[in-house]
């Protein structure tokens, strides 16, 4: 996927010829140096494909690092905040990693492919940090971002479509499980993972298989209303489902230049991923101190009154500004107006009643709206299908 496209200086993914052909809106964005569609034909319809049938999202630009060698597990245990030993072979774990100050650098998924064989799938480029982390460990890190193409195949009919493709007994695969198949003589790996909060899978193949995979998926999925989705539709789904996004809901610690703009796991509501039982991991001592002293911020999910998305809003408690919104959307399935906010302590506990100061514009006319909102304790969209095994038939 390394060819520089003729029209742009951005890279293209192995699915590009197919993506381009389907991208009716010709609406492109730059995702980590790759040209990727913001939307194919209609954001809302794409979103509804994920919620009602199957949506396909090209996630090839994600960074993939293979970690192998006798110390692979020990290496990862020092790198990430959770206990890597709890991720079995052919399982995936959601993880975050911090710098020595206990500030979140990125989140991602750890795929355990063998006893001492892992793949880190991350949003940010992490070559430098992963390389520094090898000091003192017998591990090899290989950036296989370009050697692995990936599609997220998400939605209620996704299992059926993938089964038609040859993923036998896929309905038996548990959430966060990995299954291995072959596709046209090459390996195809499926993980029951995703960013949408519903039944869904991610499919991983060598780049040579990419175009054929896309063609067959859309061919076999036609009756199941399979649709390609762009990043805007995915954004809607992930906000509804409660997933954070690096560079949006927090700044990766390594990219921050201003003091105080980084966030710790506790400040992002990700304390459950921090396992102090491990004697050593990056950020441990700083996080222990934070636990003692208290955090500066709290991550809050807000249910905002009205239907105006609280994008970039200030959050008020009485007259006092206590926070700002990082992500916001009107969520069509949950029929709720959701916002993620960073709230200064001690505000923002579940049940806290706050006000979002929303500015919106219609035909160059700006309106200021003070919308009451409430801190909720869980994502607004909850699909039982996400956790059911065998995967429910649609």
């Amino acid at each position, binding site marked *: 996927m390394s060819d520089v496209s003729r029209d742009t200086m951005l890279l293209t993914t192995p699915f590009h010829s197919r993506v381009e052909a389907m991208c009716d809106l010709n609406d492109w964005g730059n995702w980590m140096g790759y040209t990727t569609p913001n939307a194919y034909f209609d954001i809302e319809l794409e979103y509804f494909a994920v919620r009602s049938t199957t949506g396909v999202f090209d996630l090839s630009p994600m960074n993939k690092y293979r970690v192998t060698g006798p110390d692979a597990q020990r290496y990862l245990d*020092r790198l990430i905040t959770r206990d890597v030993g709890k991720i079995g072979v052919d399982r995936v774990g959601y993880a975050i990693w911090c710098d020595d100050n206990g500030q979140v650098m990125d989140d991602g998924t750890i795929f355990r492919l063998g006893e001492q064989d892992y793949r880190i799938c991350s949003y940010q480029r992490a070559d430098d940090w992963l390389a*520094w*982390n090898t000091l003192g*460990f017998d591990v090899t890190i290989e950036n296989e971002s370009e050697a692995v193409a990936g599609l997220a195949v998400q939605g209620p009919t996704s299992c059926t479509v993938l089964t038609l493709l040859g993923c036998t007994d896929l309905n038996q695969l548990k959430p966060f499980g990995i299954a291995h198949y072959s596709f046209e003589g090459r390996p195809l790996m499926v993980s029951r993972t995703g960013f949408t909060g519903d039944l869904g899978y991610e499919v991983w193949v060598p780049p040579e298989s990419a175009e054929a995979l896309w063609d067959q998926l859309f061919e076999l999925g036609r009756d199941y209303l399979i649709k390609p989705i762009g990043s805007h539709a995915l954004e809607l789904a992930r906000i509804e489902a409660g997933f954070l996004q690096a560079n949006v809901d927090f700044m990766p610690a390594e990219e921050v230049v201003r003091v105080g703009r980084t966030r710790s796991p506790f400040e992002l509501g990700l304390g459950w991923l921090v396992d102090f039982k491990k004697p050593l991991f*990056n*950020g*441990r001592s700083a996080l222990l101190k934070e636990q003692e002293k208290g955090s500066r911020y709290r991550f809050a999910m807000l249910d905002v009154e009205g239907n105006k998305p609280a994008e970039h809003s200030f959050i008020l408690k009485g007259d006092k500004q206590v926070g700002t919104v990082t992500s916001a959307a009107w969520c069509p399935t949950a029929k709720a107006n959701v916002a993620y906010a960073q709230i200064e302590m001690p505000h923002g506990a579940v049940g806290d009643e706050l006000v979002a100061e929303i500015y919106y514009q219609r035909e160059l006319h700006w309106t200021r709206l003070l919308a009451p909102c409430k801190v909720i304790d869980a994502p607004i969209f909850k699909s039982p299908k996400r956790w059911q095994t065998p995967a429910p038939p649609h």
Partner: protein
Amino acid sequence: MTDYDAIIIGAGHNGLICASYLAKAGKSVLVLDARGEPGGCASTREFAPGHHVSDCAQWLSQFDQSIVKDLDLKAAGLKLGKPKATISLQSDGDHLVIDGDTISGAGVDSADQAAYRDFKKMVRSFAKLMTTLYRSRPPKLVEQNWTDRLTLMKLGLSLKLLSREHLRDLMRIVMINIYDVMNEHFSHAALKSTIALDAVTGTNMGPRSPNTVYSYLHRATGEHLGQTGTTQVLGGMGAFGQSLATAAEKCGAKIQLGSSVTTIAKTDDRITGVTLDSGEQISAKLVISSADPSTTFRRLLGYHQMEAGMAKRVECYRSRSGTAKLHLALSGLPSFTGLSETQLTERLVITPPMDGMETALNPMKYRELSDLHIFDISIPTIEDPGLAPQGQHSLTAIVHYVPYAPDIGWEAGKPQLINQLISELEGYAPGIGALVTTSELVVPSDFEASHGMTGGSWHHGELSIDQALMMRPFPGSTQYATAVEGLYLCGAGAHPGGGLQGLPGRNAAKEILKRGAL
């Protein structure tokens, strides 16, 4: 229950000083050293039959006198020679003599003398300021507490007490290099290079390298620490180490020599003790290391035992050295053109003009031997005849710049370099070569092997502003504590740095006691 309150790795002067202060405060302390004698780089060795030399450090010029008093080192046997003048040898025999604030010879005129006095006055006021910082733990960059604020206030006050011109000058010159500063103040070439020599001694830098002003001021603190000039220690530098060992034992510390620490033991998130090469394990509440930071963290603790950001800092910590020692056993007293016999006991230096110093440095960068060197010479046997067989003498010289690993290798490189160095000396002391009965060149990698400091580095890591003061040895492990619970630093790799100063050891002990870490 642990075997000791504290284990100190390294019986160098800093380790012994730290041990003494802790033991004086009633703590049980064990000092371990791989070497057979105490003192670390303060060591004496018989390198030829009957010839004993200070085989690493040779001058005592910046030792903190409050330590001499606190530990009663005189009673412990410390005897110093007379303060020495610095004589910068010139090929025509008309040498430049620097004695305190006066300079003479080598055609210096009254303008040079006045400039020198002004320069010294300025340096003295800057060095005084640094001494304030040196005698206390370095303030933290962020999150200061009251002690740090007090230090900063003292510093602020001292800064205020500087005249406005001096303050402006300090801000300006501390980041530039000694080459430019010399050219601003002086026109006399030999005067410039002789001062510049003090700025590059023990570093891996040439006069044009940034940070050389800082390293010059570092050496200039000696005057404020109560030391009067450069001296030799009677009995050789090892006697200094020995006196510190005697004092430490008197304070109640236990010293165990010939015991190399192989690992610093850690369970969960705390240091528990050390393991020796014999396999013996010894436990303690704290481990305080005077081994250099690279040895301490990389070799003894291990990168896998620390957070990755810290491992990165250790890996990036610079500890190269271009400093070697030349030891010559002489069948008689050499004669130097233009020097009287009594002058032979002074500190003799040979340096090309500043441009030549840079030229002398260049080959080192490319792992080659130079044909031009800088010498800092002592003939200790004049003041202390017992160090050599009767009628014979030894010459020891600190020599710059010598590569760590020359491409031709040291087996071929050493004889070649020894010949080169002796022939350079012949230019000032004709006939000296014929007096040489034994010669020895000790290169940085030899020091690494014999004295245990990574890269053979004088300061246990380059003393540059990015690795100094509140950043020494690196952020996250300052103020003698490290990011690893229970592990402290007390050697030259800690604030304020290297040289026989004693402050890292003293400050570390004070900090540990103040924190109530024991």
